[in-house]
Protein backbone atom coordinates (compact mmCIF):
# COMPACT_ATOMS: atom_id res chain seq x y z
CA UNK A 1 0.00 0.00 0.00
CA UNK A 2 2.61 2.52 1.10
CA UNK A 3 4.90 1.50 -1.71
CA UNK A 4 2.10 2.14 -4.17
CA UNK A 5 1.52 5.52 -2.57
CA UNK A 6 5.17 6.47 -2.93
CA UNK A 7 5.30 5.25 -6.49
CA UNK A 8 2.30 7.40 -7.28
CA UNK A 9 4.48 10.36 -6.45
CA UNK A 10 6.85 9.55 -9.26
CA UNK A 11 5.88 11.12 -12.58
CA UNK A 12 7.96 8.61 -14.50
CA UNK A 13 6.16 5.65 -12.94
CA UNK A 14 2.77 7.24 -13.61
CA UNK A 15 3.74 7.95 -17.20
CA UNK A 16 4.32 4.24 -17.81
CA UNK A 17 1.14 3.15 -16.03
CA UNK A 18 -0.90 5.73 -17.91
CA UNK A 19 0.50 4.53 -21.22
CA UNK A 20 -0.61 0.98 -20.39
CA UNK A 21 -4.05 2.05 -19.11
CA UNK A 22 -4.96 4.46 -21.85
CA UNK A 23 -5.93 2.03 -24.66
CA UNK A 24 -8.28 0.23 -22.27
CA UNK A 25 -9.83 3.44 -21.02
CA UNK A 26 -10.31 4.73 -24.54
CA UNK A 27 -11.75 1.47 -25.88
CA UNK A 28 -14.03 0.97 -22.86
CA UNK A 29 -15.13 4.58 -22.92
CA UNK A 30 -16.02 4.62 -26.59
CA UNK A 31 -17.72 1.23 -26.35
CA UNK A 32 -19.88 2.14 -23.34
CA UNK A 33 -20.66 5.62 -24.59
CA UNK A 34 -21.63 4.33 -28.04
CA UNK A 35 -23.74 1.57 -26.51
CA UNK A 36 -25.46 3.98 -24.15
CA UNK A 37 -26.07 6.64 -26.76
CA UNK A 38 -27.23 4.30 -29.54
CA UNK A 39 -29.49 2.43 -27.13
CA UNK A 40 -30.76 5.67 -25.66
CA UNK A 41 -31.31 7.52 -28.91
CA UNK A 42 -32.68 4.69 -31.02
CA UNK A 43 -34.14 1.97 -28.85
CA UNK A 44 -35.19 3.39 -25.46
CA UNK A 45 -38.95 4.07 -25.19
CA UNK A 46 -40.36 7.53 -25.68
CA UNK A 47 -41.11 9.59 -22.60
CA UNK A 48 -44.88 9.86 -22.08
CA UNK A 49 -44.62 13.57 -21.28
CA UNK A 50 -41.66 14.91 -23.18
CA UNK A 51 -41.71 12.66 -26.25
CA UNK A 52 -38.42 12.31 -28.03
CA UNK A 53 -36.90 15.53 -26.73
CA UNK A 54 -35.92 13.87 -23.44
CA UNK A 55 -33.32 11.80 -25.31
CA UNK A 56 -30.73 14.52 -24.87
CA UNK A 57 -30.57 13.24 -21.27
CA UNK A 58 -28.11 10.61 -22.52
CA UNK A 59 -25.60 13.40 -23.18
CA UNK A 60 -26.74 16.00 -20.68
CA UNK A 61 -26.56 13.83 -17.56
CA UNK A 62 -23.11 12.31 -18.23
CA UNK A 63 -21.54 15.72 -18.85
CA UNK A 64 -23.24 17.28 -15.81
CA UNK A 65 -22.26 14.29 -13.69
CA UNK A 66 -18.64 14.52 -14.76
CA UNK A 67 -18.53 18.31 -14.45
CA UNK A 68 -19.24 17.94 -10.74
CA UNK A 69 -17.16 14.87 -10.06
CA UNK A 70 -14.14 16.36 -11.81
CA UNK A 71 -14.31 19.26 -9.39
CA UNK A 72 -14.53 16.88 -6.43
CA UNK A 73 -11.54 14.92 -7.78
CA UNK A 74 -9.66 18.20 -8.16
CA UNK A 75 -10.50 19.04 -4.54
CA UNK A 76 -9.11 15.70 -3.35
CA UNK A 77 -5.98 16.29 -5.43
CA UNK A 78 -5.76 19.79 -3.96
CA UNK A 79 -5.70 18.36 -0.43
CA UNK A 80 -2.98 15.92 -1.51
CA UNK A 81 -1.00 18.81 -3.02
CA UNK A 82 -1.24 20.92 0.12
CA UNK A 83 -0.58 18.13 2.61
CA UNK A 84 1.88 15.81 0.89
CA UNK A 85 3.18 18.14 -1.84
CA UNK A 86 2.77 15.30 -4.32
CA UNK A 87 3.74 16.42 -7.80
CA UNK A 88 1.24 14.22 -9.59
CA UNK A 89 -1.75 15.64 -7.72
CA UNK A 90 -0.83 19.08 -8.90
CA UNK A 91 -0.30 17.83 -12.46
CA UNK A 92 -3.79 16.32 -12.22
CA UNK A 93 -5.46 19.56 -11.11
CA UNK A 94 -3.72 21.53 -13.79
CA UNK A 95 -4.52 19.02 -16.53
CA UNK A 96 -8.18 18.38 -15.81
CA UNK A 97 -9.37 21.91 -14.99
CA UNK A 98 -9.91 22.80 -18.68
CA UNK A 99 -11.64 19.44 -19.21
CA UNK A 100 -13.99 20.27 -16.33
CA UNK A 101 -14.64 23.69 -17.82
CA UNK A 102 -15.62 22.17 -21.17
CA UNK A 103 -17.81 19.52 -19.51
CA UNK A 104 -19.60 22.18 -17.47
CA UNK A 105 -20.16 24.23 -20.57
CA UNK A 106 -21.48 21.18 -22.45
CA UNK A 107 -23.89 20.34 -19.66
CA UNK A 108 -25.18 23.92 -19.60
CA UNK A 109 -25.46 23.93 -23.38
CA UNK A 110 -27.29 20.62 -23.66
CA UNK A 111 -29.46 21.72 -20.74
CA UNK A 112 -30.40 24.88 -22.65
CA UNK A 113 -31.20 22.84 -25.77
CA UNK A 114 -33.34 20.53 -23.65
CA UNK A 115 -34.98 23.39 -21.81
CA UNK A 116 -36.29 25.04 -24.96
CA UNK A 117 -38.82 22.32 -25.91
CA UNK A 118 -39.72 21.25 -22.37
CA UNK A 119 -39.71 24.48 -20.36
CA UNK A 120 -40.23 26.80 -23.30
CA UNK A 121 -37.06 28.78 -22.56
CA UNK A 122 -33.33 28.45 -23.13
CA UNK A 123 -32.41 29.64 -19.71
CA UNK A 124 -34.00 30.23 -16.33
CA UNK A 125 -32.26 31.71 -13.32
CA UNK A 126 -33.04 28.83 -11.05
CA UNK A 127 -30.84 27.33 -8.39
CA UNK A 128 -29.48 24.34 -10.31
CA UNK A 129 -28.65 26.29 -13.44
CA UNK A 130 -27.14 29.21 -11.57
CA UNK A 131 -24.98 27.00 -9.39
CA UNK A 132 -23.70 25.17 -12.48
CA UNK A 133 -22.89 28.57 -13.98
CA UNK A 134 -20.95 29.38 -10.80
CA UNK A 135 -19.11 26.09 -11.26
CA UNK A 136 -18.16 27.24 -14.75
CA UNK A 137 -16.81 30.50 -13.29
CA UNK A 138 -14.89 28.56 -10.64
CA UNK A 139 -13.20 26.43 -13.28
CA UNK A 140 -12.40 29.63 -15.16
CA UNK A 141 -10.92 31.17 -12.03
CA UNK A 142 -8.78 28.10 -11.32
CA UNK A 143 -7.38 28.15 -14.85
CA UNK A 144 -6.80 31.92 -14.75
CA UNK A 145 -4.97 31.78 -11.42
CA UNK A 146 -2.83 28.89 -12.60
CA UNK A 147 -1.82 30.79 -15.73
CA UNK A 148 -1.11 33.99 -13.79
CA UNK A 149 1.52 32.53 -11.43
CA UNK A 150 4.81 31.77 -13.07
CA UNK A 151 6.39 29.71 -10.35
CA UNK A 152 5.18 26.14 -10.69
CA UNK A 153 5.18 25.27 -7.00
CA UNK A 154 3.41 28.41 -5.80
CA UNK A 155 0.89 28.07 -8.62
CA UNK A 156 0.12 24.53 -7.53
CA UNK A 157 -0.46 25.52 -3.91
CA UNK A 158 -2.39 28.71 -4.65
CA UNK A 159 -4.66 26.84 -7.06
CA UNK A 160 -5.20 24.15 -4.43
CA UNK A 161 -6.38 26.72 -1.89
CA UNK A 162 -8.76 28.21 -4.45
CA UNK A 163 -10.14 24.79 -5.45
CA UNK A 164 -10.79 23.96 -1.81
CA UNK A 165 -12.55 27.25 -1.18
CA UNK A 166 -14.74 26.69 -4.23
CA UNK A 167 -15.76 23.25 -3.03
CA UNK A 168 -18.60 24.87 -1.01
CA UNK A 169 -20.45 25.14 -4.31
CA UNK A 170 -20.64 21.38 -4.89
CA UNK A 171 -23.21 20.53 -2.20
CA UNK A 172 -25.20 23.58 -3.28
CA UNK A 173 -25.41 22.20 -6.84
CA UNK A 174 -26.14 18.72 -5.60
CA UNK A 175 -28.99 19.65 -3.30
CA UNK A 176 -30.30 22.72 -5.11
CA UNK A 177 -33.12 20.70 -6.69
CA UNK A 178 -34.19 19.46 -3.30
CA UNK A 179 -33.74 22.62 -1.23
CA UNK A 180 -35.50 25.00 -3.58
CA UNK A 181 -38.51 24.64 -5.84
CA UNK A 182 -36.96 24.75 -9.25
CA UNK A 183 -37.89 23.85 -12.79
CA UNK A 184 -35.05 21.35 -12.91
CA UNK A 185 -36.07 17.79 -12.15
CA UNK A 186 -34.42 15.90 -9.26
CA UNK A 187 -31.49 13.67 -10.06
CA UNK A 188 -32.13 10.37 -11.76
CA UNK A 189 -29.65 8.32 -9.80
CA UNK A 190 -29.56 8.11 -6.05
CA UNK A 191 -27.44 5.73 -4.04
CA UNK A 192 -30.27 4.70 -1.76
CA UNK A 193 -33.29 4.44 -4.06
CA UNK A 194 -34.24 2.80 -7.30
CA UNK A 195 -34.33 5.18 -10.27
CA UNK A 196 -37.78 6.60 -10.97
CA UNK A 197 -37.56 5.77 -14.67
CA UNK A 198 -37.93 2.33 -16.29
CA UNK A 199 -34.89 0.15 -16.78
CA UNK A 200 -34.92 0.64 -20.57
CA UNK A 201 -34.16 4.29 -19.88
CA UNK A 202 -31.79 4.24 -16.95
CA UNK A 203 -29.57 1.37 -18.06
CA UNK A 204 -28.41 3.18 -21.23
CA UNK A 205 -28.07 6.35 -19.14
CA UNK A 206 -25.88 4.52 -16.65
CA UNK A 207 -23.82 3.09 -19.53
CA UNK A 208 -23.19 6.51 -20.99
CA UNK A 209 -22.27 7.95 -17.58
CA UNK A 210 -19.74 5.15 -17.05
CA UNK A 211 -18.49 5.57 -20.61
CA UNK A 212 -18.00 9.27 -20.00
CA UNK A 213 -16.00 8.47 -16.85
CA UNK A 214 -13.70 6.15 -18.77
CA UNK A 215 -13.31 8.67 -21.57
CA UNK A 216 -12.49 11.33 -19.01
CA UNK A 217 -9.93 8.96 -17.49
CA UNK A 218 -8.30 8.59 -20.88
CA UNK A 219 -8.28 12.32 -21.50
CA UNK A 220 -6.91 12.99 -18.02
CA UNK A 221 -4.09 10.47 -18.59
CA UNK A 222 -3.28 11.98 -21.95
CA UNK A 223 -3.17 15.53 -20.66
CA UNK A 224 -1.21 14.51 -17.57
CA UNK A 225 1.32 12.71 -19.75
CA UNK A 226 1.79 15.87 -21.80
CA UNK A 227 2.17 17.98 -18.68
CA UNK A 228 4.66 15.50 -17.20
CA UNK A 229 6.75 15.54 -20.39
CA UNK A 230 6.77 19.33 -20.29
CA UNK A 231 7.79 19.51 -16.65
CA UNK A 232 10.38 16.76 -16.79
CA UNK A 233 11.81 17.76 -20.13
CA UNK A 234 15.29 18.10 -18.68
CA UNK A 235 15.41 14.60 -17.19
CA UNK A 236 17.16 11.67 -18.74
CA UNK A 237 14.11 9.39 -19.07
CA UNK A 238 12.13 11.97 -21.02
CA UNK A 239 15.04 12.44 -23.41
CA UNK A 240 15.31 8.66 -23.85
CA UNK A 241 11.56 8.37 -24.33
CA UNK A 242 11.40 11.09 -26.93
CA UNK A 243 14.44 9.82 -28.81
CA UNK A 244 13.20 6.23 -28.78
CA UNK A 245 9.66 7.09 -29.75
CA UNK A 246 10.00 9.87 -32.26
CA UNK A 247 13.56 9.46 -33.50
Amino acid at each position, binding site marked *: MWQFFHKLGSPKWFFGIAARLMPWLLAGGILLLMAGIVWGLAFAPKDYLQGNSYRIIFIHVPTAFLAQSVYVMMAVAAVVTLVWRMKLADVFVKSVAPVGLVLTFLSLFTGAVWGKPTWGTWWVWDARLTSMLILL*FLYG*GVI*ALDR*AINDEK*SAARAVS*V*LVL*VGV*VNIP*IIQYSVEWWNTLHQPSTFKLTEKPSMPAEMWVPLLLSVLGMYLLFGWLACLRMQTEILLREQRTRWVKDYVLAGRG
Partner: protein
Amino acid sequence: MNADCRPALTLRQDTVGSLAAMQAVFARDMQVAFRQRQDLLNPLLFFVMVVTLFPLGVSPEVSFLREAGAGILWVAALLSVLLSLDHLFRHDFDDGTLEQLVLQPQPLFLLVLAKTAAHWVLTGLPLVVLTPVLGVMVHLDGNSIGVLCLTLLIGTPVLSLIGSIGAALTLGLRSAGVLLSLLIIPLYIPVLIFGTGTVASAAEGAPVGAYLALMGAFLVLALTLAPFASAAALRISLSNG
Protein backbone atom coordinates in the same frame (compact mmCIF):
# COMPACT_ATOMS: atom_id res chain seq x y z
CA MET B 1 4.05 55.86 -0.49
CA ASN B 2 5.29 58.24 2.15
CA ALA B 3 7.27 56.22 4.66
CA ASP B 4 6.28 58.16 7.79
CA CYS B 5 2.63 57.48 6.98
CA ARG B 6 3.20 53.87 7.86
CA PRO B 7 4.18 53.19 11.47
CA ALA B 8 6.10 50.00 12.12
CA LEU B 9 4.60 47.12 14.01
CA THR B 10 6.17 46.05 17.28
CA LEU B 11 4.91 42.66 18.37
CA ARG B 12 8.26 40.92 18.62
CA GLN B 13 8.04 39.61 22.15
CA ASP B 14 6.41 36.28 22.76
CA THR B 15 4.81 37.85 25.80
CA VAL B 16 2.42 39.81 23.60
CA GLY B 17 -0.76 37.72 23.64
CA SER B 18 -2.68 36.92 20.49
CA LEU B 19 -5.50 39.27 21.42
CA ALA B 20 -3.12 42.15 22.06
CA ALA B 21 -1.40 41.43 18.76
CA MET B 22 -4.74 41.51 16.95
CA GLN B 23 -5.54 44.82 18.58
CA ALA B 24 -2.19 46.23 17.54
CA VAL B 25 -2.67 45.12 13.91
CA PHE B 26 -6.19 46.51 13.87
CA ALA B 27 -5.14 49.83 15.39
CA ARG B 28 -2.25 50.18 12.98
CA ASP B 29 -4.44 49.53 9.94
CA MET B 30 -6.90 52.15 11.16
CA GLN B 31 -4.08 54.62 11.74
CA VAL B 32 -2.60 54.02 8.29
CA ALA B 33 -6.02 54.36 6.68
CA PHE B 34 -6.81 57.63 8.40
CA ARG B 35 -3.51 59.07 7.20
CA GLN B 36 -4.61 58.30 3.64
CA ARG B 37 -8.16 59.58 3.83
CA GLN B 38 -8.71 59.70 0.09
CA ASP B 39 -8.28 55.93 -0.11
CA LEU B 40 -11.11 55.63 2.39
CA LEU B 41 -13.41 57.85 0.39
CA ASN B 42 -12.85 56.25 -3.00
CA PRO B 43 -14.90 53.06 -2.52
CA LEU B 44 -17.75 55.13 -1.08
CA LEU B 45 -17.74 57.51 -4.04
CA PHE B 46 -17.65 54.49 -6.32
CA PHE B 47 -20.64 53.03 -4.49
CA VAL B 48 -22.68 56.21 -4.91
CA MET B 49 -21.71 56.57 -8.56
CA VAL B 50 -22.59 53.00 -9.50
CA VAL B 51 -26.00 53.41 -7.86
CA THR B 52 -26.47 56.65 -9.81
CA LEU B 53 -25.84 54.85 -13.09
CA PHE B 54 -28.96 52.69 -12.81
CA PRO B 55 -31.71 55.35 -12.70
CA LEU B 56 -29.89 57.22 -15.47
CA GLY B 57 -29.01 54.18 -17.57
CA VAL B 58 -32.06 51.95 -17.14
CA SER B 59 -35.08 53.88 -15.95
CA PRO B 60 -35.86 56.56 -13.37
CA GLU B 61 -39.41 55.17 -12.97
CA VAL B 62 -40.41 54.80 -9.34
CA SER B 63 -41.88 51.32 -9.96
CA PHE B 64 -38.64 50.01 -11.50
CA LEU B 65 -36.41 51.52 -8.84
CA ARG B 66 -38.58 50.23 -6.01
CA GLU B 67 -38.37 46.74 -7.51
CA ALA B 68 -34.67 46.75 -8.37
CA GLY B 69 -33.35 49.18 -5.76
CA ALA B 70 -32.20 46.62 -3.21
CA GLY B 71 -30.43 44.60 -5.90
CA ILE B 72 -28.73 47.71 -7.28
CA LEU B 73 -27.48 48.74 -3.86
CA TRP B 74 -26.25 45.22 -3.13
CA VAL B 75 -24.42 44.91 -6.45
CA ALA B 76 -22.89 48.37 -6.00
CA ALA B 77 -21.76 47.51 -2.47
CA LEU B 78 -20.31 44.22 -3.69
CA LEU B 79 -18.36 45.94 -6.47
CA SER B 80 -17.05 48.63 -4.18
CA VAL B 81 -15.82 46.07 -1.63
CA LEU B 82 -14.20 44.21 -4.53
CA LEU B 83 -12.49 47.41 -5.63
CA SER B 84 -11.09 48.10 -2.18
CA LEU B 85 -9.78 44.56 -1.65
CA ASP B 86 -6.65 45.20 -3.64
CA HIS B 87 -5.46 47.53 -0.86
CA LEU B 88 -6.02 44.95 1.86
CA PHE B 89 -2.53 43.42 1.68
CA ARG B 90 -0.90 45.28 -1.20
CA HIS B 91 0.87 48.10 0.66
CA ASP B 92 1.97 45.80 3.45
CA PHE B 93 3.30 43.41 0.83
CA ASP B 94 5.19 46.15 -0.98
CA ASP B 95 6.96 47.55 2.09
CA GLY B 96 7.65 44.22 3.79
CA THR B 97 5.27 44.61 6.72
CA LEU B 98 3.50 41.47 5.63
CA GLU B 99 6.65 39.40 5.98
CA GLN B 100 7.05 40.74 9.49
CA LEU B 101 3.47 39.71 10.23
CA VAL B 102 4.13 36.19 8.98
CA LEU B 103 7.19 35.99 11.22
CA GLN B 104 5.30 36.97 14.38
CA PRO B 105 4.95 34.30 17.05
CA GLN B 106 1.19 34.88 17.12
CA PRO B 107 -0.89 32.74 14.74
CA LEU B 108 -1.10 34.36 11.32
CA PHE B 109 -4.80 33.68 10.83
CA LEU B 110 -5.64 35.84 13.85
CA LEU B 111 -3.59 38.73 12.47
CA VAL B 112 -5.28 38.26 9.10
CA LEU B 113 -8.63 38.31 10.86
CA ALA B 114 -7.68 41.61 12.53
CA LYS B 115 -6.67 43.08 9.17
CA THR B 116 -9.91 41.90 7.59
CA ALA B 117 -11.89 43.38 10.48
CA ALA B 118 -10.14 46.71 9.93
CA HIS B 119 -10.93 46.46 6.22
CA TRP B 120 -14.61 45.91 6.99
CA VAL B 121 -14.78 48.80 9.45
CA LEU B 122 -13.16 51.05 6.85
CA THR B 123 -15.20 50.00 3.78
CA GLY B 124 -18.17 47.76 4.63
CA LEU B 125 -19.44 49.74 7.58
CA PRO B 126 -19.45 53.15 5.81
CA LEU B 127 -21.39 51.51 2.96
CA VAL B 128 -24.03 50.39 5.44
CA VAL B 129 -24.18 53.90 6.89
CA LEU B 130 -24.63 55.39 3.41
CA THR B 131 -27.32 52.91 2.41
CA PRO B 132 -30.37 54.68 3.93
CA VAL B 133 -29.63 57.83 1.94
CA LEU B 134 -29.29 55.92 -1.33
CA GLY B 135 -32.26 53.74 -0.38
CA VAL B 136 -34.44 56.84 -0.24
CA MET B 137 -33.07 57.94 -3.60
CA VAL B 138 -34.18 54.67 -5.22
CA HIS B 139 -37.61 54.99 -3.55
CA LEU B 140 -37.38 52.02 -1.18
CA ASP B 141 -39.87 52.16 1.69
CA GLY B 142 -38.73 52.49 5.28
CA ASN B 143 -39.11 48.84 6.19
CA SER B 144 -37.14 47.69 3.12
CA ILE B 145 -34.36 50.16 3.89
CA GLY B 146 -34.10 48.83 7.42
CA VAL B 147 -33.92 45.23 6.24
CA LEU B 148 -31.46 46.19 3.49
CA CYS B 149 -29.16 47.83 6.05
CA LEU B 150 -29.40 44.74 8.22
CA THR B 151 -28.50 42.40 5.33
CA LEU B 152 -25.59 44.62 4.36
CA LEU B 153 -24.47 44.73 7.97
CA ILE B 154 -24.34 40.93 8.05
CA GLY B 155 -23.28 40.54 4.41
CA THR B 156 -20.41 42.99 4.00
CA PRO B 157 -18.19 41.25 6.60
CA VAL B 158 -18.71 38.06 4.59
CA LEU B 159 -17.63 39.94 1.48
CA SER B 160 -14.49 41.22 3.25
CA LEU B 161 -13.66 37.77 4.62
CA ILE B 162 -14.09 35.88 1.34
CA GLY B 163 -12.35 38.71 -0.45
CA SER B 164 -9.33 38.45 1.81
CA ILE B 165 -8.70 34.95 0.40
CA GLY B 166 -8.71 36.30 -3.15
CA ALA B 167 -6.55 39.27 -2.21
CA ALA B 168 -4.03 36.96 -0.56
CA LEU B 169 -3.98 34.57 -3.53
CA THR B 170 -3.42 37.27 -6.14
CA LEU B 171 -0.84 39.22 -4.14
CA GLY B 172 2.08 40.30 -6.25
CA LEU B 173 0.68 39.00 -9.53
CA ARG B 174 0.42 41.00 -12.71
CA SER B 175 -3.13 42.13 -13.52
CA ALA B 176 -4.06 41.13 -9.98
CA GLY B 177 -7.15 43.36 -9.93
CA VAL B 178 -9.03 41.64 -12.74
CA LEU B 179 -7.92 38.22 -11.59
CA LEU B 180 -9.13 38.99 -8.07
CA SER B 181 -12.59 39.79 -9.43
CA LEU B 182 -12.65 36.60 -11.50
CA LEU B 183 -11.79 34.46 -8.49
CA ILE B 184 -14.02 36.16 -5.97
CA ILE B 185 -17.25 37.05 -7.78
CA PRO B 186 -18.40 33.40 -8.10
CA LEU B 187 -18.01 33.07 -4.34
CA TYR B 188 -19.94 36.29 -3.74
CA ILE B 189 -23.00 35.15 -5.69
CA PRO B 190 -24.67 33.17 -2.85
CA VAL B 191 -24.31 36.12 -0.46
CA LEU B 192 -25.83 38.43 -3.07
CA ILE B 193 -28.74 36.05 -3.74
CA PHE B 194 -29.67 35.79 -0.08
CA GLY B 195 -29.03 39.47 0.61
CA THR B 196 -31.42 40.67 -2.08
CA GLY B 197 -33.80 37.77 -1.40
CA THR B 198 -34.22 38.99 2.17
CA VAL B 199 -35.20 42.48 1.04
CA ALA B 200 -37.56 41.14 -1.64
CA SER B 201 -39.21 38.96 0.97
CA ALA B 202 -39.53 41.92 3.35
CA ALA B 203 -41.08 44.05 0.60
CA GLU B 204 -43.80 41.43 0.19
CA GLY B 205 -44.47 41.55 3.91
CA ALA B 206 -43.15 38.03 4.49
CA PRO B 207 -41.06 37.21 7.58
CA VAL B 208 -37.31 37.54 7.02
CA GLY B 209 -36.05 35.64 10.04
CA ALA B 210 -35.08 32.53 8.08
CA TYR B 211 -33.18 34.55 5.49
CA LEU B 212 -31.32 36.52 8.12
CA ALA B 213 -30.46 33.31 9.95
CA LEU B 214 -29.00 31.90 6.74
CA MET B 215 -26.94 35.03 6.19
CA GLY B 216 -25.77 34.76 9.78
CA ALA B 217 -24.73 31.20 8.99
CA PHE B 218 -22.72 32.47 6.01
CA LEU B 219 -21.04 34.97 8.32
CA VAL B 220 -20.14 32.33 10.89
CA LEU B 221 -18.84 29.99 8.19
CA ALA B 222 -16.74 32.73 6.60
CA LEU B 223 -15.51 33.95 9.98
CA THR B 224 -14.29 30.50 11.00
CA LEU B 225 -12.83 29.29 7.70
CA ALA B 226 -11.77 32.30 5.62
CA PRO B 227 -8.91 33.51 7.90
CA PHE B 228 -7.24 30.09 7.67
CA ALA B 229 -7.50 30.06 3.88
CA SER B 230 -6.19 33.64 3.62
CA ALA B 231 -3.31 32.91 5.96
CA ALA B 232 -2.36 29.85 3.88
CA ALA B 233 -2.67 31.88 0.69
CA LEU B 234 -0.50 34.67 2.15
CA ARG B 235 2.28 32.23 2.98
CA ILE B 236 2.12 30.88 -0.58
CA SER B 237 2.18 34.35 -2.11
CA LEU B 238 5.11 35.43 0.05
CA SER B 239 7.15 32.35 -0.82
CA ASN B 240 6.43 33.18 -4.45
CA GLY B 241 8.47 36.38 -4.39
